[in-house]
């Protein structure tokens, strides 16, 4: 294991550098399910799915809603290229809940000509947002 070496996390979005710091563990959701990454991980690139991102810092834990993008994992750090990622304080709960309901209703009704993949993605995003807040 990479004991004693810093394990850094960088989260970059098109608009800003979202997070940069030394962490102990990072958890997030990928196309293969939820994974947790510790220092010394095998080099890997994974595609992200909407979900909760948990950042374990030496002192505290931080959460964020991570919606899409991909992550490049190296033994000494992770770089996440995220298209959309939000801190809990940036999320509007009422809006997220409304979006969740809307997406659920659409999926239930199976409206004609509805883009199912899109509704499903919207539902996942809404759920991720609400989970981060809780």
């Amino acid at each position: 294991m990479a004991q004693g070496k810093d394990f850094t996390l960088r989260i970059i979005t098109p608009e800003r550098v979202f997070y940069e710091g030394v962490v102990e563990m990072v958890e997030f959701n990928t196309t293969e399910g939820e994974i947790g990454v510790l220092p010394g991980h095998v080099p890997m690139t994974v595609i992200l799915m909407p979900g909760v991102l948990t950042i374990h810092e030496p002192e505290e834990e931080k959460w964020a809603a991570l919606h899409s993008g991909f992550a490049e994992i190296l033994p000494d750090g992770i770089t996440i290229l995220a298209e959309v990622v939000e801190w809990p304080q940036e999320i509007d709960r009422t809006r997220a809940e409304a979006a969740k309901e809307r997406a659920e209703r659409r999926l239930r009704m199976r409206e004609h000509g509805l883009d199912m993949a899109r509704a499903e993605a919207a539902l996942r995003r809404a759920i991720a947002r609400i989970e981060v807040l809780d």
Partner: protein
Amino acid sequence: MASMRDIKRRRGSIQSTQQITKAMKLVSTVKLQRARSSAEKTKSYFDCMYETVRSILARIGEVPSPYLHGRTSERKAVVAITSNRGLAGGYNSNVVKLVTKHEGWKKEDVTIYAIGSKGRDAFARNGYEIAEDLSYLAESPTYADAMHLSDKLLREFCDGKIGEIYLAYTFFRNTVSHEPILLKLLPVEKMEQEGPVAMAPMNFEISDEEALELIIPKYITSLLYGGLMESIASENGARMQAMDNATSNAEDMINNLTLAYNRARQGSITQELTEIIAGAEAIG
């Protein structure tokens, strides 16, 4: 020689034009700074994205992905990024020229996705087909806007309606140098391998083909967004330069007119004096 009054009036009008160009220069300087800092902020994202896509393509070799191989359709979609406002020197016409002067392209085969009303009007005047007018994007685009556009383009591409996608934008080298560039977005061309790829070995849990399917749309979106950011910075840079030139030209003209005015004034004084003296001598 023009009369003193004419010169004075002309000088006054140039002076007020100069005030306007000076103000416009200041405005675009401020806008340029803002646009440049946001373009720089996005830069690390694109560098990372570019590296990743390059290393995937270098590694997986030939796969039967529609994104890598040309379609049968002859149609070319060009996303042309110009501005909604003029007075920016050659900024808009340079982008338009990229397409109109492109050799081997037939007008009938090209469809324009116009971002910026100046470009839209120029293409329409030249008889190009405008598929969509997205001029509102030229002011302050968001990443979601770019996502929307790339979704639409990819759908058309996958349906076989268009065979190639290009992006015509202005690359922001620095404050004084901007370069119009025509970039091929799809099909993705194999990039030349320049030395070893500095990235982690791609160890996808899903297959390469699937990874490609997921990453290419993000790649296109990031290129579109990057192109928009660069173009906005370039637009303000170009306008700043144009207005700077206009201000100094006005300065030159004002100087010349002031000289002409003073000469005319001196001439009229001399003439008056001569007349008075001649009159006095005639009496005496």
